[in-house]
C-alpha cells in the first residue's frame, strides 16, 4: 500500500495550482520510479494510449459543435420557438429561458458555453420586462445545467469512457433526468414569478399559423436534434460520427441556410476547439494512466472492501457519495473529479448492485451542481461576472432554483427508472 503516497502528493500539487495533468503525470512517474520495476518510458506509453480510442474523438466534435452553434443563428430560432411554447405562462421569459436550455441541450454539449450565450441573449430582455437581475441570472445558471445532461453531453461521453460503459446508453439515460430538471425548474420559475408578479411574455397561446412559422424557421435546428439523438439511438452511427455529421450540418445551416456565420467564426471555433480538447484530453490521458496503476495495485477492490465494510446498503452508499461529491465539487473541477473517482468507485458500485449507467447520471448531475456553488463554480462565476450580480445576491434570490435542482438530484438518485428506462 506504500504506493498510495502518490495520491496525497498529487493532491498537494493540485492545491498549489500546478496544472492538473502535470501534477498527475508527476505522480505517475513517481510511481514508476519508486514502486514498480516497469521501464519509465512505459509511463509515456500509458499516457498516450487513450488518444487512439476513437470514442474520445466525440469530445472535440461536440466542443466544436457547441462553439459553432453560437454563431450559426440556431439559438435565435430556438428562442422564438421556446417563447411560443411557454411564453403565455406566468413568468413567461423565465420559462422560455429554461425551455431554450432544454432544446439546446439536444445539440450543445457543455453548460459553460450555454450559460455564456444565454447571459447575452436573454438576461437583458428579462430585465427589461421587470425581472430582478439576480433572479434572471440564477434562472440562466440553473437551467444551463440541463444542457450537459440531455444528450449529447461532454460529461456523458467522459463518464462512458472512464467507466467503460457504452456512450450510446449514457446518452439514452440522460434524456429523462434532463426533462425532469426542466419540469422542476419550470415549477420553480412559476412559483417565483407568482410571488413577484412577473407577467407572461405573450398575451395569448400561439395560433396554428404562428406555430407553423416558428417551426418552419427552426426546422434546421430541430433537424439537428433529430440527427444527433435519433442517429445514435437507432445505431445508424456512433456518437463520434454523430458529432462529425452534426458539425457539418451546422456549418451548412450557418453558412448557407441562415447565412449568419462568417468564415472568421469558423476558424476561431477550430482553434478554440483545439485548445479545449487539449485541456480536457490531457487530464483524461493522465488519469487513464493512473487508472492503470489503480488496477495494477487492485486499488478499486481495496476501496470496495473498505466501503462494503462500512455499509452494504446501496441507498446509504448513494447518500454518502452524493454528500461527498457535493463537498468535493465545491472545490475541484467536475471533469477531473469524475476521472479520478470513477475507476476507484466502479467496483463498489457493481458490488452493491447499482447500475453503472445510473451511477453515472447521479455523478454528472451532482458535479454539475458543483459548477453552481462557490468557490470554484465555473458557471456561477461566469454568470455572475457577465451579468454583474454578486454571489451573495445570486444565492439569496436564486435559492428556489437551486432547490429544484437538488430535488432533481434526489429523485435521480433514488428512482433508477429515470436513468434506466430508455436504455
Amino acid at each position, binding site marked *: 500500500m506504500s504506493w498510495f503516497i502518490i495520491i496525497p502528493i498529487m493532491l498537494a500539487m493540485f492545491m498549489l495550482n500546478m*496544472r492538473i495533468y502535470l501534477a498527475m503525470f508527476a505522480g505517475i512517474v513517481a510511481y514508476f520510479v519508486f514502486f514498480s520495476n516497469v521501464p519509465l*518510458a512505459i509511463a509515456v506509453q500509458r499516457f498516450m494510449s487513450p488518444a487512439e480510442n476513437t470514442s474520445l474523438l466525440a469530445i472535440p466534435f461536440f466542443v466544436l459543435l457547441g462553439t459553432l452553434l453560437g454563431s450559426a443563428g440556431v439559438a435565435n430560432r430556438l428562442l422564438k420557438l421556446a417563447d411560443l411554447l411557454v411564453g403565455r405562462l406566468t413568468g413567461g421569459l423565465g420559462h422560455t429561458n429554461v425551455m431554450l436550455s432544454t432544446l439546446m441541450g439536444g445539440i450543445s454539449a457543455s453548460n459553460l458555453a450555454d450559460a*455564456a450565450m444565454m*447571459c447575452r441573449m436573454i438576461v437583458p430582455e428579462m430585465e427589461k420586462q421587470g425581472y430582478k437581475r439576480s433572479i434572471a441570472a440564477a434562472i440562466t445558471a440553473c437551467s444551463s445545467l440541463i444542457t450537459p445532461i440531455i444528450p449529447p453531453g461532454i460529461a456523458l461521453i467522459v463518464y462512458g469512457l472512464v467507466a467503460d460503459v457504452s456512450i450510446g446508453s449514457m446518452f439514452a439515460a440522460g434524456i429523462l433526468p434532463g426533462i425532469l430538471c426542466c419540469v422542476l425548474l419550470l415549477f420553480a420559475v412559476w412559483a417565483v414569478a407568482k410571488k413577484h408578479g412577473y407577467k407572461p411574455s405573450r398575451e395569448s397561446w400561439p395560433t396554428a399559423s404562428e406555430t407553423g412559422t416558428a417551426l418552419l424557421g427552426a426546422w434546421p435546428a430541430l433537424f439537428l436534434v433529430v440527427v444527433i439523438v435519433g442517429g445514435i439511438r437507432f445505431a445508424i452511427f456512433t456518437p463520434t*460520427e454523430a458529432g462529425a455529421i452534426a458539425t457539418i450540418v451546422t456549418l451548412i445551416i450557418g453558412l448557407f441556410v441562415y447565412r449568419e456565420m462568417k468564415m472568421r467564426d469558423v476558424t476561431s471555433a477550430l482553434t478554440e476547439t*483545439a485548445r479545449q480538447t*487539449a485541456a480536457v484530453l*490531457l487530464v483524461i490521458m493522465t488519469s487513464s494512466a493512473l487508472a492503470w496503476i489503480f488496477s495494477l495495485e487492485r486499488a478499486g477492490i481495496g476501496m470496495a472492501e473498505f466501503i462494503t465494510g462500512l455499509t452494504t446498503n446501496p441507498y446509504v452508499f448513494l447518500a454518502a457519495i452524493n454528500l461527498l461529491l457535493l463537498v468535493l465539487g465545491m472545490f475541484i473541477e467536475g471533469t477531473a473529479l469524475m476521472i479520478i473517482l470513477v475507476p476507484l468507485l466502479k467496483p463498489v458500485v457493481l458490488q452493491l448492485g447499482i447500475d453503472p449507467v445510473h451511477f453515472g447520471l447521479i455523478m454528472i448531475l451532482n458535479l454539475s451542481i458543483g459548477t453552481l456553488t462557490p468557490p470554484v463554480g465555473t458557471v456561477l462565476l461566469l454568470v455572475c461576472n457577465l451579468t454583474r450580480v454578486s454571489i451573495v445576491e445570486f444565492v439569496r434570490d436564486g435559492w428556489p432554483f437551486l432547490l429544484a435542482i437538488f430535488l432533481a438530484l434526489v429523485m435521480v438518485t433514488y428512482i433508477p427508472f429515470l436513468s434506466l428506462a430508455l436504455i
Partner: protein
Amino acid sequence: MKYIAGLASALGGVMIAILVTITAAAVFMRYVVGAPIQWTEEASGILMIWIVMLGAISCEWRRQHLTIDFVVIALPPTARRVMTILVALASIAVLILMAWLAWQLAQTASFKRTQILRVSWFWLDLAVVVGAIGTAAVTLHQLFFPPEPVSDDQIGH
C-alpha cells in the same frame, strides 16, 4: 512566443477540420457509396495525439489548462508570487522529463509501424516531445513576462 502559440493552435485547428472531414466521409462512404474506408480510425488516432499536444502549448499560453486555484488565490500577494514561480519551475522540470521519456520511446519504437497506414510510431511519440517542449518554453516565457490576468468574460468564448 506569441507566434509559436498561435502557430500551434492554427495547426491544431486545421487538424480538427481534417478530423471532422474524414470521420464524416467514413460515414458517407459506408452508407452512400457502400465502400467503407479502413484507415480513418488509425489516421484519427495520429491526428488526435498531435491536436492534444499542440493544443497544450496554446492552452498554456492562454491559461486554459485545468487547475485548482482557490488556495493560491487566497494567499497574500508575495506568497502567491513565490508559489507561482516555484510551481512554474517544477512544471518545467516535469515537462522536460516528459519530453525526454517520449524521445526515448520514439527511438525505441521507431521500427514499430501502425497496422494499415504503416506510419512509424516515431511520428506519434514525437507529438509528445514537441508538445512538452513547447509548453515548457511557454511556461518559462511567462515566468519572465507574466500575462495579463484573463477575465472571466473570456471563458465562454
